[in-house]
């Protein structure tokens, strides 16, 4: 009996297995709880919300919440703009961070250690410190409220979370055998040709990791998007779903005032809006789940 519960050296006991699975399932449920709550609430109509006998399953599949939320958020235009806002800086991030990471990993030059220190420092420093003068700089250049406020830093390797990406590429390229690069050099390739023909094609997993994370982080960044790309004082046309969600209540109320939506703001409409704003990323996650989950492993963040 004891052996059955606690197991022997060779085989894990049933009791231990039950405990592990039980814990995992409980924690998994806790993880999913907010999402389930959100989904179930978002389908409830007014009566279901007030009815105390209905906790989880709504009486009918009520889609009006989604329609109202989508029209208030300008779902399709915001979605497309969000893809542009996250996509272009992501491409630049991949390109520039790869160059810089390769530079750090393969060449020995003076001041490299200092520069890597600076890189780590720029990660630890909260962006709020540099935000104020940067905002001043952008408004002097007249690019607040345009996409350039995201493109410019990304172009110079200082995009959102760029230090992490540079470090990922740095780690990755250090594991590329030097013989490979030297062979290319002996065959007459210059530094850039070696980079483009040998290093880049071998960096697939790292590129994937950086691309996915960069896209997700840019997509979810509401603070900087609202301030730089949308421009707090002069609301421009650039806006993504997350920022729409942040200002959901006010935009919904103005729509209500103009009579475009019939019902008043209830929590199920809010939950529908939340569901809509995370829907695109959820779809992306379920399609690319394997790449996402294994990305950290393969990009070699943990080294060898």
């Amino acid at each position: 009996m004891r052996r059955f519960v606690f197991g022997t050296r060779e085989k894990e006991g049933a009791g231990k297995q039950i405990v592990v699975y039980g814990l995992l399932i409980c924690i998994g449920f806790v993880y999913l709880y907010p999402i389930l709550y959100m989904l179930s609430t978002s389908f409830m109509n007014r009566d279901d919300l007030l009815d105390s006998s209905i906790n989880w399953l709504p009486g009918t599949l009520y889609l009006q919440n989604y329609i109202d939320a989508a029209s208030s958020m300008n779902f399709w235009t915001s979605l497309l703009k969000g893809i542009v806002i996250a996509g272009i800086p992501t491409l630049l991030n991949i390109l520039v961070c790869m160059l810089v990471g390769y530079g750090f990993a393969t060449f020995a030059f003076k001041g490299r250690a200092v520069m890597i220190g600076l890189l780590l420092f720029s990660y630890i420093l909260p962006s709020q410190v540099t935000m104020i003068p940067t905002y001043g700089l952008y408004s002097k250049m007249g690019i607040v409220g345009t996409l350039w406020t995201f493109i410019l830093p990304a172009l110079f390797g200082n995009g959102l979370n760029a230090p992490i990406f540079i470090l990922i590429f740095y780690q990755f390229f250090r594991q590329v055998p030097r013989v490979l690069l030297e062979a290319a050099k002996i065959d007459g390739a210059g530094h850039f040709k070696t980079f483009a023909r040998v290093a880049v094609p071998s960096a697939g997993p790292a590129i994937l990791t950086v691309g996915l994370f960069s896209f997700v982080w840019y997509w979810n960044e509401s603070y900087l998007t609202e301030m730089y790309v949308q421009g707090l004082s002069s609301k421009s046309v650039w806006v993504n779903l997350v920022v729409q969600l942040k200002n959901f209540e006010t935009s919904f109320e103005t729509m209500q005032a103009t009579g475009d939506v019939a019902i008043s703001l209830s929590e199920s409409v809010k939950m529908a809006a939340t569901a809509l704003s995370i829907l695109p990323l959820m779809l992306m996650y379920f399609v690319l789940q394997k790449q996402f989950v294994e990305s950290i492993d393969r990009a070699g963040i943990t080294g060898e």
Partner: protein
Amino acid sequence: MRKEKKVKDPRAKLGKLEKREARAGYLFVAPWLIGVCLFLLYPLCQSFYYMWFNIRITPLKTLYTYVGTGNFTQIWLENPEFPQQIVTYLWQTIVEVPIIVVFALMIAIMLNGKIKCRGLFRLIFFLPVIIVSGPVMNMLVAEGAASIPAMNTESIVAAFDTFLSHSLAEAIGEIFSDMIMILWYSGVQILIFLSALQKIDSAMYEAASMDGASGWESFWKITLPTIKPYILLNAVYSVIFLSSNEQNTLITMIQDAMFSGTKEKGYGYAAAMAWMYAVIVTLIVLLFFLLLGSKKDVYDRQIKRRKRALKKEARLVKKIERRGRRNARKIEQARQKRKYKTYSGESDY
């Protein structure tokens, strides 16, 4: 991490090839270098400068008035919200980060065992990383989806309040009420731990169990020391994540101060706030570095101590030798002198 291959002595003159190589290196990192100057160092200096001024932006030009430490005294004395928020933030981060890291480690260890549907569980635990963003979190917290309904937060706060300071008890209460959100923040950390755990050589565990170590012992003696660097990595990551998260009221306060049109607030005021905030974040990171930084393990320390003892002995031997030589010389000298003396005395005589 691998150790860098030892390059040549940096003071030695570089060869032509190395020079060319270094030039290529500079070329590759040049974009980032420009970026750092433009978007990090220059704004950093500028906001340090702003901190001492009251800045008002009029349509025609920007007015700078030197106020010295005026911004700081104003923040600390006249704005009751900021100090309060700082204290809350401090407690929250210091309590939450260990929770996140320990929790991530637990999950990672469970997932690392022989388990069916590991992929499915990884999928679930990583899901929050994808959807976590300020507004979404705010929405979910506001609707009460972030707390487990069965958990009674108020009684927990009351219980802690009896023997801890009030602000700490509040922070702990807040942690319990946002438990799910805290767990949501540990997705990346779980994956980092998992991939670190998978790189531990299983032969080590086998050897340990051969010698009669239990699973518990081999966890403390093998697993923990091996993944210690990743504990630090995850702790730092969590601190940074928590401090740049939009759930954090401090960063919204800074933004509000920046754009408030009132006479006393503005860029200078916001810069002072941001600097104080940055100092506190850096201090927290340093704290975790000190707590979790790589201490040498026992054997290393023993070897070092032994080396030191050997060196001391060698020094002692040398000292004795030197002294012996000196004494011999002295004796020799004295003898010679005496000889000379006696000799000269004789001649004198």
